[in-house]
């Protein structure tokens, strides 16, 4: 049998049950492969349960960085019975499959390579160590030198059964060098020096780090997948950075606490997902009328209702956009990479503070829980500016002026009174029922919407602006668009990614107005961002939508674009 060769990339899918250590495997493999000098992008797909079930982790290992999901792996490792059946749809004739014949009733179609998984880790300590043995096999296949690998294992597991893990790894490595594997697979990926020095992190970590950079010192939230990672991250940093981290009794308490914190001059964030956010909407409206800054991290998952709690979707753009009764300005960022996640979260604090409005960071499970590689986050080390004034004797919290931004003072500093009211109020912050004052205050608040600063990095254009087709993506589909635009060059395909989706950046609209064919790619049923573009007068010719709970697979979109371009012919 001629060995299958992977010159540029190998996508490894590992399937196992919750509790089999997939997370540890992913973390370890990402670590060691990157140390070895290869790029890895890892994303997971998990069931809403703690033990059992069938989860997967996909590792795209390559010379050039990738940042999108793939449906069909080159190599599947199935660690639990049922995996082959469940994943059948995702395999092709070329996929190489490592499986345990004792766990499957039938041999896989295609290139199955039986591995006795029970046996392999037996000496090291039994089935708990199957995962690390598999890591050994993979390291061997990837050509990571044995000696170096063993060092990494020792370091990585130094507090967690180092001996057993090392033994299991070594056994796996040996298995990986056996001819049945070595001779049928040829992973010809040459490591390079360019991975070293880069950053690897999850979206949760990036949002958390961005919050710290933005000066966040208060977070109150209620756990909800996939937003909890940010809360956990900040809890870990609380001591070092002097944050207060509080688990609220519900989401309503969380958003109201965050408004109380901002009122004193602290910088607060909440992190939640769609269903939890729905409960915060009255609070968002309160932020709107009281002009209290607030930063909301909304990590999307598929709805409606509880939906698919551990999976991904981009279905809550409309929810964020129209959250809260009445009209008031807001900003919605939707980062597509960890760099963007860091930057927009940081900026969210700045913009919220400066304009005294709610600012959203809209992410999703795919961004939150994948492991990304990034050159750097370009952190400039600046202390965030505070848009606060010391109040004078005759201070008026809601002074009417041209910008609509009334200088904000906080209680306990200055000579004036800081009166904040959820009823319509006059400039002093006292309840009013005067129709003219009402109009003045509405106009003042809405005036802020006109002046909202736009930044160059609110959009990213990949490819030229005069190509044949302009793909539009937002949020976590940044990497997808990038890869598509790079691969589809004839006819010329570019991609415009929005990391700010509302207000839609003018620059982005300008580019789209000139584009020949606009195709919007969104992970939701109705094409919510496309509708926003339509409302802005952009003609969106076509849409690629998906709502099955998975991220877009780059090859699926590639294929459907090819079809659109060639009218079905390949």
């Amino acid at each position, binding site marked *: 049998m001629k060995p299958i060769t992977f010159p540029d990339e190998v996508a490894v899918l590992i399937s196992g049950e919750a509790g089999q250590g997939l997370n540890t495997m992913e973390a370890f493999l990402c670590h060691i492969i990157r140390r070895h000098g290869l790029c890895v992008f890892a994303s997971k797909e998990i069931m809403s349960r703690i033990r059992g079930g069938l989860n997967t982790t996909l590792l795209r290992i390559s010379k050039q960085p990738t940042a999108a999901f793939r449906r069909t792996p080159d190599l599947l490792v199935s660690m639990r019975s049922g995996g082959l059946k469940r994943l059948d749809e995702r395999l092709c004739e070329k996929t190489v499959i490592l499986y345990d014949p004792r766990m499957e009733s039938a041999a896989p179609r295609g290139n199955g390579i039986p591995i006795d998984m029970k046996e392999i880790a037996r000496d090291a300590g039994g089935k708990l160590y199957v995962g690390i043995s598999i890591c050994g096999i993979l390291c061997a296949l990837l050509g990571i030198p044995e000696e170096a690998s063993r060092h990494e294992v020792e370091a990585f597991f130094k507090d967690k059964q180092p001996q057993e893990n090392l033994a299991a790894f070594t056994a796996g490595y040996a298995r990986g060098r056996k001819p049945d594997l070595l001779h049928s697979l040829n992973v010809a990926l040459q490591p390079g020096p360019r991975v070293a020095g880069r950053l690897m992190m999850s979206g949760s970590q990036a949002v958390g780090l961005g919050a710290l*950079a933005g000066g966040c010192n208060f977070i109150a939230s209620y756990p909800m997948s996939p937003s909890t990672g940010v809360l956990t991250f900040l809890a870990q940093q609380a001591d070092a950075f002097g944050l207060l981290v509080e688990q609220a009794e519900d989401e309503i308490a969380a958003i109201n606490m965050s408004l*109380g914190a901002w009122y004193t*001059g602290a910088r*607060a964030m909440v992190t939640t997902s769609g269903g939890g956010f729905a409960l915060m909407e009255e609070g968002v409206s309160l932020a709107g009328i009281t002009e209290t800054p607030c930063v909301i991290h909304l990590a999307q998952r598929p709805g409606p209702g509880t939906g698919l709690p551990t999976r991904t979707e981009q279905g809550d753009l409309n929810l964020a956009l129209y959250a809260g009764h009445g009209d008031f300005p807001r900003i919605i960022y939707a980062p597509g990479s960890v760099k963007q996640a860091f930057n927009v979260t940081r900026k969210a604090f700045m913009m919220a503070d400066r304009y005294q409005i709610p600012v959203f960071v809209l992410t999703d499970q795919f961004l939150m829980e994948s492991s990304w590689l990034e050159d750097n986050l370009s952190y400039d080390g600046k202390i965030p500016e505070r848009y606060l004034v010391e109040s004078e004797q005759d201070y008026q919290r809601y002074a009417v002026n041209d910008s609509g931004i009334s200088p904000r003072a906080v*209680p306990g500093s200055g000579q004036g009174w800081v009166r904040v009211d959820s*009823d319509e109020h006059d400039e002093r912050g006292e309840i009013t029922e005067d129709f003219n004052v009402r109009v003045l205050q509405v106009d003042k608040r809405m005036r802020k919407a006109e002046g909202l600063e736009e930044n160059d990095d609110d959009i990213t254009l990949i490819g030229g602006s005069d190509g044949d087709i302009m793909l539009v993506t937002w949020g976590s589909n940044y990497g997808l668009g990038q890869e598509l635009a790079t691969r589809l060059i004839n006819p010329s395909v570019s991609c415009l990614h929005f990391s700010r989706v509302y207000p839609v950046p003018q620059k982005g609209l300008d580019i789209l107005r000139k584009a020949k064919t606009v195709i919007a790619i969104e992970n939701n049923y109705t094409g919510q961002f496309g509708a926003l573009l339509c409302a802005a007068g952009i003609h969106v010719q076509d849409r690629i939508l998906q709502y099955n709970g998975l991220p877009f697979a780059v090859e699926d979109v590639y294929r459907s674009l090819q079809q659109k371009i060639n009218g079905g012919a390949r």
Partner: protein
Amino acid sequence: MSSSPFDLPYDLDIAWCPGCGNFAIIKILKQALENAGIEPRKLVLVSGIGQAAKMPQYLQCHYFNGLHGRSLPVATAVKACNPELCVIAESGDGCTYGEGGNHFLHTIRRNPDIVNLVHNNMIYGLTKGQGAPTTMKGMKTSIQLKGYALEPFNPLAAALAMGAGFVARVSSGDAAQATTVIEQALAYPGYALVDIFHPCISFNKLNTFRWYREHTDSLEDHDETDLESAMTRAMQTEPYRLGVFYRQAKPTFRERSHAYDTDDSPLCRRDIDPAKLADLLGNYRIPTG
């Protein structure tokens, strides 16, 4: 009314009904604040929505007049972020025990150093007289035409069951006692509940000034540190007892949150240390070599 540092320096049209119990409460509050030596510029009143919740509008102070039911989370955060402020959460019985019931439970468990004043008129005043959680059984309202039928909510018993360290009830009709108790609540380091009986003359024709006088009595021979006895007395109805039912020092939210373990400066004035963040970022870097 004698002048107080909490008087507004201008006239304001007060939106309460002439003769309402709220007028007595504002007097009591100003007096208690003055007695307790609170500086107006350090005072933040946080309220929800309702007639009681309009209180902050009529005092010289900072205020955050938020949403119906949501005074406690706001107040908790204000105190947590700036412990130099004196924070009072003040609202009606519907606002605090109805819409805001979950915050009532869990704020007590946190024990922030705030005072919670609840104007308990046993009715929804501002929305024109529907039953409140504290409405008495049998009272007829516009929605409960055959008489209010649920078990009345017992805020004192609930607070004690949640582990509150300062639990009191006063009546707007007994200004002297009410003033003293609120003063003590202000002095107590932790969450202090003061449920304030007062009449809504527009919608509650049962619990009038006179009714409160006839159906309440001060706690007597009561050991404020005895939880069991506090609970027993909180469960009693005729007469409803007035005074401090329970007082016991407990660790406050400040300590429980650990936010001030190593740094005394108010959260709201803390800046991020960029060097530390740069260090932390370094941890995510793939080592060279």
